[in-house]
């Protein structure tokens, strides 16, 4: 019985701790009555974080809720009718798998472009110099899973360069891929230029030659016409919004 008692004690303690730390997290700021729910690709984490701040600073009544995930996960969620006002994906192909009825026939607008880069741990233990060095079997490489945009893009980069890396894991989204390098668990990863920029000094970025690189174009879908949704889209399409994107390393379509 005493095992059960300790079990209960641990449970209680965990619940209490979770309850305490969770306090206030979900509290809605007073006066923010209009909510816009944004589902965005993981690669947009930093940029959309900035835009959320801008929108909320400029509109005291608007609250922006952003959920970041792999584009393929977002598509699944939207096709299963999750609540969303704005859907931003990492490539056009992901957008083609959205069911027209689930997005109410919304048409995509291309709002940014991205390119790929090799990321290594800050001290580059595998001495990766270029795409071709990934061919060496001693370099553990992580890639995005082939069904997410960064995985598709990485595959075409590798095909263009005729490079077959020693892949140790296919991760669910670009942030998970990069984190394996940040933790020093892998010698190299192929991720977006913007993710390397966002990671700052914790990773080392190696440019991929233009003739081997690919450019992905990011589509955004608006599923709603209300004020909050418009406020977010306006911010995204404004020159200040473009600057946020370019500052984070995105290109313009």
């Amino acid at each position, binding site marked *: 019985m*005493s095992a059960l008692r300790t*079990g209960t004690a*641990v449970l209680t303690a965990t619940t209490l701790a979770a309850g305490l730390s969770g306090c206030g997290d979900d509290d809605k700021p007073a006066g923010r009555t209009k909510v816009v729910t944004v589902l965005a690709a993981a690669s947009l984490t930093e940029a959309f974080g900035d835009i959320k701040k801008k929108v909320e600073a400029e509109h005291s009544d608007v609250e922006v809720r952003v959920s970041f995930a792999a584009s393929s996960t977002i598509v*699944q969620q939207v096709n299963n009718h999750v609540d969303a006002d704005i859907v931003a994906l990492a490539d056009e192909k992901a957008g083609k798998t959205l069911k027209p009825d689930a997005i109410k026939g919304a048409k995509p607008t291309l709002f940014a472009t991205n390119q790929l880069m090799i990321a290594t741990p800050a001290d580059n233990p595998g001495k990766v110099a270029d795409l071709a060095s990934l061919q060496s079997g001693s370099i553990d490489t992580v890639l995005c*899973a082939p069904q997410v945009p960064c995985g598709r893009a990485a595959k075409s980069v590798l095909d263009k360069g005729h490079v077959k890396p020693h892949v140790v*894991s296919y*991760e*669910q989204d670009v942030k998970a891929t990069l984190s394996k390098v940040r*933790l*020093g668990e892998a010698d190299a990863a192929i991720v977006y230029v913007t993710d390397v920029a966002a990671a700052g000094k914790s990773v080392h970025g190696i440019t991929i030659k233009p003739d081997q690189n690919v450019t992905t174009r990011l589509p955004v879908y608006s599923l709603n016409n209300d004020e909050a949704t418009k406020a977010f889209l306006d911010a995204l399409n404004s020159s200040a919004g473009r600057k946020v994107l370019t500052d984070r390393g995105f290109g313009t379509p």
Partner: protein
Amino acid sequence: MRQRHDHPARSLLALPAVLALLLLMLPLIALLIRVDWPHLWTHLGTADAGAAVRLSLRTTLTTVVLCAVLGTPLAWLLSRSSGPLLPWLRALVTVPLVLPPVVGGVALLMAWGREGVVGGPLSDWFGWTIPYSWVRVVLAETFVSIPFYVLAVEGAMRSLDRRYDDLAATLGASPLRTFRTVAVPLTLPGIAAGATLAWARALGEFGATITFAGSFPGRTQTAPLAVYQALEIDPDAATALSMVMLIVCVVVLALLRGRWWR
């Protein structure tokens, strides 16, 4: 008289009981209904199901062996010790039961990762790292499932009459021999129950595995990981593989039921 008393109370309890059963059964039935039976094999091929199921079986069986080899002595020591530290020790064993698996995965990275507390020195001094292979999967599965095993076996061993120990001791048996010839044989049903629990937990393991071992088809992608990945490309493939896993679980539990679950 008695029956008349019982009847209204029983029907009062029957409603929530039936609801509970429905809550449990409905998703499983839905899964069976939605499986695209005519194209089952094609879908299983898409999901890389064969490799994933084989990997799952290999890693979970290894996990169960590890649980038995390491967990049985721990359970025995816990059941025969006393002292102020014991409740703490037992609580420590329980932690992975309530810890979110993904947190377990992060903790495993911190310990065994290439720059981990143990993994770092191993890599720096001997150039040895735990490869991204089924070894990592087994480590993750053992971490989450050994508590189930230890708790079940400890319970069985604690309820074993201590007079057997004493008797064995007066006959000249060493503690090791008592463990081997008295405790283990007499608690075999408890050991089997613990092993089943641990196996089931390991088979369902997802969070710690994807965090610590990543996901590589045939190498670290276990069946639950394959289901998750398949869901993003082809929901039919995910359903097909889920169904296979459901059948594997039901068959094993049914085989064990008569023997050990009473």
